[in-house]
């Protein structure tokens, strides 16, 4: 297991508070570097407990139209992995505590080269979610991640059965990301009953914190997910707020970042009210 202390420390302190984590998402360089940086810097103040940053890729096979378009805007604005790490480094200059997880696809990482994990850790990244590297291919990246002290956060899906769960969990550190639907991001939501059924099934196999993502959109859904599990990832709903505020040319307006942060604040308020075990 990695020594990535920021993720473990954050979940431990939230456990002490008796509540789950809000994990908002932003796509790097969407719609431009400055706006994305303003959102990233504003996340902790708006109530983000952990932060997930999407790394744009031309062919995001697990993402729905909302994140696909965010990635395209990011690429158009010049997003690269090096540029994304630079954003994290800039963020870290003002925030040493909020964990940052990068989510992306393998090919840009492969293309970056063997130094990726070391460079990411040095920039202040705490964990990686690499959508298209399942446990069967873990040796592609795990040794480098481990050496750099980065957590490899794995996705568990509704299709991950009892026989497979231990194999996936054995390759996971930091926290577990439960994909609450069989589907791509931002398309539909799981019911509270489905989640209440799924999360204990995973808990039987691990002591790691569990965050729920894919289809968590509203403050109510975030509160419920954070209560049933240990955290809620909200992505497409925030990108919808951002995209809805862009001008006809796809450019941010002066208040765009603030609109996203206001929505994060609303989500955070709901998550903070939802005490666990209540």
């Amino acid at each position, binding site marked *: 297991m990695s020594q990535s202390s920021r993720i473990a420390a954050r979940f431990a302190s939230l456990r002490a508070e008796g509540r789950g984590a809000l994990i908002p998402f932003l796509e790097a360089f969407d719609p431009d570097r400055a706006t994305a940086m303003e959102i990233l810097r504003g996340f902790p103040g708006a109530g983000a407990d952990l932060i997930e940053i999407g790394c744009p890729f031309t062919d995001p096979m697990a993402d729905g139209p909302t994140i696909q378009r965010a990635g395209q805007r990011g690429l158009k604005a010049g997003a690269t992995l090096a540029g994304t790490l630079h954003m994290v480094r800039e963020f870290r200059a003002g925030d040493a505590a909020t964990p940052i997880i990068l989510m992306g696809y393998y090919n840009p990482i492969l293309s970056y080269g063997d130094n990726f994990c070391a460079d990411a850790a040095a920039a202040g990244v705490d964990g990686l979610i690499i959508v298209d590297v399942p446990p069967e291919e873990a040796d592609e990246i795990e040794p480098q991640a481990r050496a750099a002290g980065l957590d490899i956060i794995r996705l568990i899906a509704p299709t991950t059965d009892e026989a497979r769960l231990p194999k996936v969990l054995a390759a996971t550190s930091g926290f577990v990301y439960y994909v609450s639907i069989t*589907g791509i991001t931002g398309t539909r939501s799981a019911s509270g009953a489905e989640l209440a059924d799924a999360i204990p099934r995973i808990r039987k196999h691990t002591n790691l914190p569990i965050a729920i993502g894919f289809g968590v959109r509203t403050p109510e859904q975030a509160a419920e997910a954070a209560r049933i599990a240990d955290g809620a990832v909200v992505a497409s709903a925030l990108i919808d707020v951002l995209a809805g505020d862009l001008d006809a040319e796809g450019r941010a307006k002066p208040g765009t970042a603030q609109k996203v942060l206001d929505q994060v604040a609303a989500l955070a308020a709901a998550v903070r009210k939802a005490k666990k075990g209540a």
Partner: protein
Amino acid sequence: MNKPLPNSLRQGPDARGRFGPYGGRFVAETLMPLILEVEKAYEEAKRDPAFMNEWRRLLTHYVGRPSPLWFAERLTQKLGGAKIYFKRDELNHTGAHKINAVLGQIMLAKRMGKTRIIAETGAGQHGVATATACALFDLPCTVFMGATDVERQQPNVFRMKLLGAEVVPVTSGAATLKDAMNEGLRDWVANVRDTYYCIGTVAGPHPFPMMVRDFQSVIGTEAREQMLAAEGRLPDLLVAAIGGGSNAMGLFYPFLDDASVAMHGVEAAGKGVDTEEHAASLTKGRPGVLHGNRTYLLQDEFGQILEAHSISAGLDYPGVGPEHAWLHDIKRVEYVSATDDEALSAFQLCSKMEGIIPALEPAHALAHVIKVAPTMARDKLIIMNMCGRGDKDIFTVARALGVSM
């Protein structure tokens, strides 16, 4: 005494689905359990004589196999070199080689209890083949097709609809085969419990590259016997077009261990491999991971995938099957390319001289044959895979030649 294992190139992939460093299973966790299930089901099916006999029955009586091996005598005389044979998979039901693997896969889907089929298509040949098999097996079928390809392959779009399939135009990216495959994978993630993804080429996550190759190998197995019957010996050179590479793998695979048989895979050079508009992933790309496998990809320095270009919608893909990537590295197969213009010339020449209107995909293979046959002695033997017929392409070709229809 233990004998050393025979030195064979036909033992791949390994248990991880790798051909050398290529291949693998790079998919999201949601799909992973199903990928493993497909692998298990296929391993069982291919050892089940009843399954294989039923597939062969369909190939004989529904597809019309074996396809003939045709000595292209007039073309041979004109080019003045090696004897040129066409393996005539364009005569198959649905007009291309795609149906060979589709029937096997749809039978497998039935066996797995799947009730819905999805597929991606570029030129529409795989979509038509899948829609056809789904009509025969009474399964609902959805075909993802880039909006650009929907436009340039209208006859096949209409064919699929007649066969009862739903055709979904995909508008993301350049709206061609790569984007159709993304959308197919997204649909599969969302409908993983009841849906089978019938992949059209020797790419994607393991076991698809192996499985599609195994089914398509019927082409090479037949060609081998037919050439032995016709000439009493093996061919000297095999030539096939490469998009994802299924028709080429099908022809090459049964000959891989025959050291005397050279093989040329012909990639689409579009407007030229020195321009930015081509689809020559082995010639100009480098290894990466896309659509479930590690292989050669057209990509920029940051690992973002580039758009491919070819006049042939079936070759318009920025990757290639992982077994080809391996055969390229170990130099068992030589990968060359032919431009849009060369393919167009070959298309016309073949139509006039052999009375066979080829698809634009094998027209690329023929363009290479036109280059290489005259450099070979008259007693040398070439088999070119005529993997599809050109009916679907006449509008594209007319436009390229400035003819209004």
